């Protein structure tokens, strides 16, 4: 029974000091949870602390691999809007490439 931090983590440190079991540690390329130490905060807090402060949707999974903060739950940004974001980033990137080669 343990939570997991995955690659979308942006290394903001917010979760690390909150863990009652000191199960979270800095690693490359992102923070990790020691599954042996993690108790999902049961007995300490009503809700898992790391998942309660994490600003990145989908970055923390429960023991079944489900996202504790699914898309849209924190930012209000829907999947549809997210697709728009990815298109905008791609467009900016392509434009920068073109400007460089011009």
């Amino acid at each position: 029974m343990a939570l997991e931090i995955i690659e979308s983590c942006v290394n903001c440190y917010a979760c690390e000091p909150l863990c009652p079991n000191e199960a979270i540690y800095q690693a490359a390329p992102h923070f990790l949870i020691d599954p042996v130490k993690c108790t999902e905060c049961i007995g300490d807090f009503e809700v898992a602390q790391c998942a309660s402060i994490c600003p990145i949707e989908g970055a923390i999974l429960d023991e079944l691999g489900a996202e504790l903060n699914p898309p849209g739950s924190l930012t209000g940004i829907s999947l549809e809007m997210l697709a728009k974001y990815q298109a905008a980033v791609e467009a900016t990137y392509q434009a920068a490439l073109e400007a460089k080669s011009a």
Partner: protein
Amino acid sequence: MELPVLNAGQQEASQGGCASHSCGSTDDQLSHLPEHIRAKVHNHPCYSEQAHHYFARMHVAVAPACNIQCHYCNRKYDCSNESRPGVVSEVLTPEQAVKKVMAVAANIPQMTVLGIAGPGDPLANPERTFATFRELSERAPDIKLCVSTNGLALPESVEELSKHNIDHVTITINCVDPDVGAKIYPWIFWKNKRIMGREGAAILIEQQQKGLAMLAERGILVKVNSVMIPGVNDEHLAEVSRVVKSKGAFLHNVMPLIAEPEHGTFYGLMGQPGPTHEELQKLQDACSGDMNMMRHCRQCRADAVGMLGEDRGQEFTMDKIEDMEIDYEAAMVKRAEVHAQIARELEIKDQARAAKTELVAIQGLKTDQPATRPVLMAVATKGGGVINEHFGHASEFLIYEASGSGVRFIGHRKTVPYCEGGDTCGDGESALDKTLRELAGCEVVLCSKVGYEPWGPLEAAGIQPNGEHAMEAIEDAVLAVYEEMRVAGKLEARPVVQQKAA
């Protein structure tokens, strides 16, 4: 015609000759403040409009964690070409931050201020933030320390802040009404829980106001930053201004929302527009009746280095400073010399201004002149309060308004330097087009030099290029040009200006 130079937003002084609280130029924005406050801010570029022409600041990004979410923020995104709060290239440990600060202080002696502003919330990272402050207050006592916060953890941090001799705190307060807050803050982290929507916003507002009052009680200077979000809090910010002033904030900085889809923020993706230059100025003017307003903020990155409006962060990346040997004792001597020289320069300016004020007081204002309309002028400057930048090299222009009652500083407009036009992020608009669009509403652009090529398009857009006042003091030059326009009969009525459509 002798024109007095007036304080921002306080044109009533023109009627009485010289109202004691407001006479002087925009340089003298702080003239009505008590002496001990002026002494604290005179060399702080983020608190004093005058100081920002002479002194530099830096931020160290030691505070990545945040305890709230704002709809205009997305800390996932970093672009070295982008300048906005919350954006950094590398997060530093306190040890690295101290090294970087000392390296910058030794190399840029005008750097007087070190701020911690993120990229998260400094007070949500108390250990990292205070370790940096502790070390710096011992090793670099000639640097002012300040911090910028969303205010949620402020009340519990006030004691620690006052210990480190931090006498400048900026709180970002976008609202004092939880219903407005619910549209800006989707959640906060509070007492071991994530609290969504209005309930979270209400707690945040309460903590901000409590923290503000506690700081004011201890004599710590508080500036309030507000992001102007049209349709969300624009009509509410005048109220915010009144409330924070009554709680003891001494300066209010209303900043325009920055939101683009490629930032990946909620507002960016929703297409939430930021205010136009005119809307921003109108709100700032509306607030200025109640509050001392700041208009020179550049909304810099959480790792910015240099004068406001410039970012020399790339010269001081960790890999570059690791090898630098810093003799801080020697650097402090050099820094003291540079600061003294700036102080002398400012003293001469102050004397000149006082003399001018006295002259106006003796002669009175000539009221037989027909009323003249106000004119906006753009100025290219590298600092020092003088016109010393080429048109083509300017990445921003300062905007001044000249009118029958004097000159006041309005704000700045960022652009892409014309001479580096090919190197932009490619949005299909040339650098000159962008500059013309940004300078809409201005009738003159003052710079040390302007090339033949942009001259025509500028004139066609109703913006007269002017390179005749190179190295002159900005306000003197603006007044001189305004007087020339008056003599030429250009100030009687609104001209039919062929501004390029935005």
